[in-house]
């Protein structure tokens, strides 16, 4: 039945068409498109949907069925599907550039992440070049199960074709050398709602490496300030805790409270 899919992993046009919501629903706003063609024991899409739009399974091997009227394209299921088989399509996206584009929201588990405004390579289901696409949003937060969601704007006619992106490697702008965090990742967290330095620290370990924030905290504060439109002095400052540099546990153990300890 899925001859091509079973041999190559590439679904046929007919299979993809069948997975798409009807045109009338697409015209109403963002909606999930589920490309899950095989019975496998997996149900998190259905159990995670807060609106019950993915119908409950009678059997864990069921193929998901979606009630398009209940789905509002929230993207939660994108971060729960272990097969990364779900995307959200928004044919009603307001294209301020005057082009006739729609937005596709894709789960994207690769690094580097793109940055909003980047032009990335849009790929079809076989990994072939389709067009360049503009990145309009990159989201990542602690509730997203480490699944970033990249939204790209593509010509409406290409919506049934595009299913992936390739981010051409460019010079990374490093925010935190100790924990290897770049601008794209931090910016995705900020866009995803992580808007204080303390939250960034807890999620990414920014500021918790050997430099203890000397390099990264000023940069991150600058990024937060620009993203939130607030001057740095109105942002919550970072908390500084002992010690200011790494010391060996053995040095602590050698401490003797009795003498003055000076050589």
């Amino acid at each position, binding site marked *: 039945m899925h001859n091509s899919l079973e041999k190559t*992993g590439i679904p046929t046009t007919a299979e993809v068409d069948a997975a798409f919501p009807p045109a009338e629903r697409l015209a109403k706003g963002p909606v999930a498109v589920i490309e899950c063609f095989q019975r496998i024991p997996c*149900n998190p899409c259905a159990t995670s949907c807060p609106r019950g739009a993915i119908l409950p399974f009678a059997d*864990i091997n069921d193929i998901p069925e979606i009630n398009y009227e209940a789905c509002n394209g929230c993207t939660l299921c994108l971060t729960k599907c*272990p097969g990364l088989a779900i995307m959200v399509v928004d044919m009603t996206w307001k294209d301020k550039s005057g082009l006739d584009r729609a937005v596709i929201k894709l789960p994207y588990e690769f690094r580097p992440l793109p940055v909003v405004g980047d032009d990335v390579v849009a790929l079809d289901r076989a990994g*072939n070049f389709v067009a360049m696409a503009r990145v309009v949003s990159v989201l990542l937060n602690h509730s997203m199960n480490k*699944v970033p969601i990249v939204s790209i704007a593509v010509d409406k006619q290409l919506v049934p074709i595009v299913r992936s992106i*390739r981010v051409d490697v460019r010079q990374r702008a490093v925010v935190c050398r100790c924990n290897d965090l770049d601008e794209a990742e931090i910016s995705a967290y900020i866009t995803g709602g992580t808007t204080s330095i303390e939250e960034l620290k807890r999620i990414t370990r920014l500021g918790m490496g050997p430099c203890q924030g000397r390099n990264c905290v000023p940069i991150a504060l600058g990024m937060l300030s620009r993203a939130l439109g607030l001057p740095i002095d109105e942002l919550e400052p970072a908390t500084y805790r002992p010690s200011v540099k790494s010391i060996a546990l053995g040095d602590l153990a050698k401490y003797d409270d009795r003498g003055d300890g000076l050589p």
Partner: protein
Amino acid sequence: MIHTDLLICGAGPAGLCAAIEAGAAGADVLVLERGHAPGGQLVKQTHMFFGSEKQYASYRGFDISDILVAQMSEMPNIRLICDATVLAAYDDGVFAAEIAGKYEKIRPRATVVATGASEKPLLFPGNDLPGVYGAGAVQTLMNQYGIRPAGRVVMLGAGNIGLIVSYQLLQAGVDVLVVCDGAPKIGGYLVHASKLARMGVPIMTSHSVKRAEGEGKVEKVTLWELDKNWQGIAGTEKIFAADTLCVAVGLSPLSELLWQAGCEMLYVPALGGYVPYRDAQLSTSIPGIFVAGDVAGVEEASSAMVTGRLAGLAAAGFLGLDIIALEAKKEDCLAQLHSLRHGHGGKILDGIQQALLDTNNKGDEHA
């Protein structure tokens, strides 16, 4: 001689779940783990798991490991020792282990063998060249030790391991030139295959490796098409300039301890090789020896967790411990296993049916 209620061999997903269930029932549990840390294969699984909530679907493998280890750590009656390999099972019920470099003997009242499985090798010219790896080894290097293990990879095997490791190689910035499989169809989940396809990785079914070549290391991998009898077809060779050939052609149960203990064994290809006869509650033919996870038959980690729970409950029952709603808990495990298994075209279920001890087992009601 160490005395314990329950010895668990292996702290992978099955062993951890067995320990948690038996520990909750009040058993004094000793878990011996060969590796430096608990978690088994879970710790290198960076992808989200399938299954349902009960098997932590959507969680990533290493997060599941943390959850299970945390649950276990709350029970003072469970003792976990790492760097401890169970060496032998003697027919008088005594086990031997190397624990922190010392030989020890253990006399448990019951045992759960949850030793897992090892990667199957493949015979082809050049298979001893540096650069020929098991896919699991590559995954360990990459996800556990943080080493970029390869530059340009040919993956042999389009089962779930081959597909998942290929995807993780891409995530690590490694080129995956091709995924091939001797079978005419992709064996792993098609959603995994589609993830690779849309990143531009070609998948070639009915293809296998003819040979690997190179000066002291892999430099070239030749694939060829297989006919219906799995024989290579001359003239269909395709050459790839790869530095690594990953072999992901399946796993076989690590069943040495079961053989030594005298368990009745059976060769079941659908379960990966020799597996013990067992009843529906995972008791082997030797009373007091239970099995869980891949050693009982190679399946997904989700099933390994459930078989671990079931074996832990059964072992606690064998020890005579009072367990609230024991039968209901076992039934729940059996129901979970049935739903996880019957989606695979029945192959696993058929295999397990063959290996079932001829008792009035409870598994039948679900089968």
